[in-house]
């Protein structure tokens, strides 16, 4: 049986009209229009395009909710195996629309999406991690080259074949760093890379340096003596027995524990952090998360209150992605609870 493709294009490629038609609401046609026609031909006996969705670029971007509601309904009704959108080349609004359709379809229906864009298209960043975005030229002159690449990828996906490297397959990197086996061991690759550097030959790093973003400093606490301070640690301090089973490395979750009745962590807590010698932290857990000192400052009236919950996770080997998730979740709780300031300790 042939797999079913549903095709998405804008008003121009849908042969409705140019800029003057950019405000048109989406329509669905059970025929192959514009690039869908050529694409269908490229699928041969393996698959077929069952229809074309056409939507004005302005309409999509200005009425995203309504546009998506119609589009998603059509997709649900025609139940395709895969969605193909564009290619949008360097058309910004068209790119944003392809991206919007791709994200909605993947998130809500879990149907794969293949599209195409020029590397500078503003729609790229929001969908590259989820959809497969084929790299195209910046103008529609590249249509003839882009469609076969997109068709090949669609056929592979429908056969459940793993895609090769972005450069080999012609798509734009999704930003996924996948572990694979090389034919040379690491030390040999290092020696080869150094030899290249020493003889001024070209070489390619296997790990481009990460880029970390910045956040503006939050305003200071005006009056410490009226403030509630929360204590957070990535040092893996947990109540004995690790009731929430937080991992000793590469944490997938965080825990929070009521410390309102405690004077110190010492006595009931220990560390499950796999990244350091735990002997000293287990002797006096407050060496990692100084609840005892905060409680003293509370008694002395230096601070108003220590927040009733203590938050904890393991920092070692924990992906930045998970740290961001934990920080966002914990920060939300602290914000909602009206916490004024946070002390976060790391090991």
């Amino acid at each position, binding site marked *: 049986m042939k797999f079913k493709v549903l095709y998405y294009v804008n008003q121009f490629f849908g042969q409705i009209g140019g800029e003057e038609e950019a405000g048109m609401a989406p329509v669905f046609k059970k025929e192959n229009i514009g690039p869908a026609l050529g694409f269908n031909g490229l699928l041969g006996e393996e698959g077929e395009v069952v229809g074309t969705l056409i939507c004005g670029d302005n309409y999509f971007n200005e009425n995203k909710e309504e546009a998506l509601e119609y589009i998603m309904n059509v997709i649900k009704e025609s139940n395709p195996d895969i969605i193909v959108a564009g290619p949008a080349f360097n058309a910004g609004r068209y790119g944003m629309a392809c991206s919007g359709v791709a994200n909605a379809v993947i998130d809500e229906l879990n149907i794969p999406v293949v599209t195409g864009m020029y590397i500078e298209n503003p729609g790229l960043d929001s969908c590259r991690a989820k959809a497969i975005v084929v790299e195209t030229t910046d103008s529609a002159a590249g249509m003839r080259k882009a469609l076969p690449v997109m068709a090949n990828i669609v056929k592979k996906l429908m056969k459940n074949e793993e895609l090769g490297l972005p450069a080999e397959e012609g798509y734009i990197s999704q930003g996924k760093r996948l572990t694979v086996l090389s034919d040379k061991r690491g030390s040999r690759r290092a020696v080869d890379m150094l030899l290249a550097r020493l003889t001024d030959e070209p070489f390619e790093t296997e790990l481009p340096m990460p880029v970390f973003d910045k956040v503006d400093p939050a305003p200071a606490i005006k009056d410490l003596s009226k403030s509630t301070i929360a204590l957070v640690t990535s040092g893996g301090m947990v109540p004995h027995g690790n009731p929430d089973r937080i991992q000793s490395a590469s944490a997938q979750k965080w825990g929070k524990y009521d410390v309102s009745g405690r004077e110190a962590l010492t006595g009931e807590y220990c560390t499950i952090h796999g990244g350091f010698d735990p002997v000293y932290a287990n002797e006096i857990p407050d060496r990692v998360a100084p609840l005892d000192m905060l409680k003293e*400052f509370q008694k002395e009236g230096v601070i108003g209150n220590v927040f009733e919950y203590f938050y904890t996770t393991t920092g070692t080997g924990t992906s930045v992605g998970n740290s961001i998730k934990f*920080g966002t979740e914990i920060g939300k709780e602290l914000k909602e609870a009206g916490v004024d*300031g946070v002390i976060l*300790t790391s090991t």
Partner: protein
Amino acid sequence: MVKEIERYGIPIVHMSTITTISESVGANRIVPTIAIPYPVGNPNLPENEEYTLRKKMVERALKGLNTEIKEVTQF
């Protein structure tokens, strides 16, 4: 985690030993600590000295929360 909490507008002080990493990843208020296995403490000191040290470090953290800053600052 530090940055994500700060994004909510809550001031946060990062008590960490390897402050070079704190700065690279974008913490704004930083209190340098003693060593990775015992950031807020020092088992090599006698009990009363360790107590004073620990109290001072937390005091510095509170001072950090109480101080307006424009750029990365160590307390």
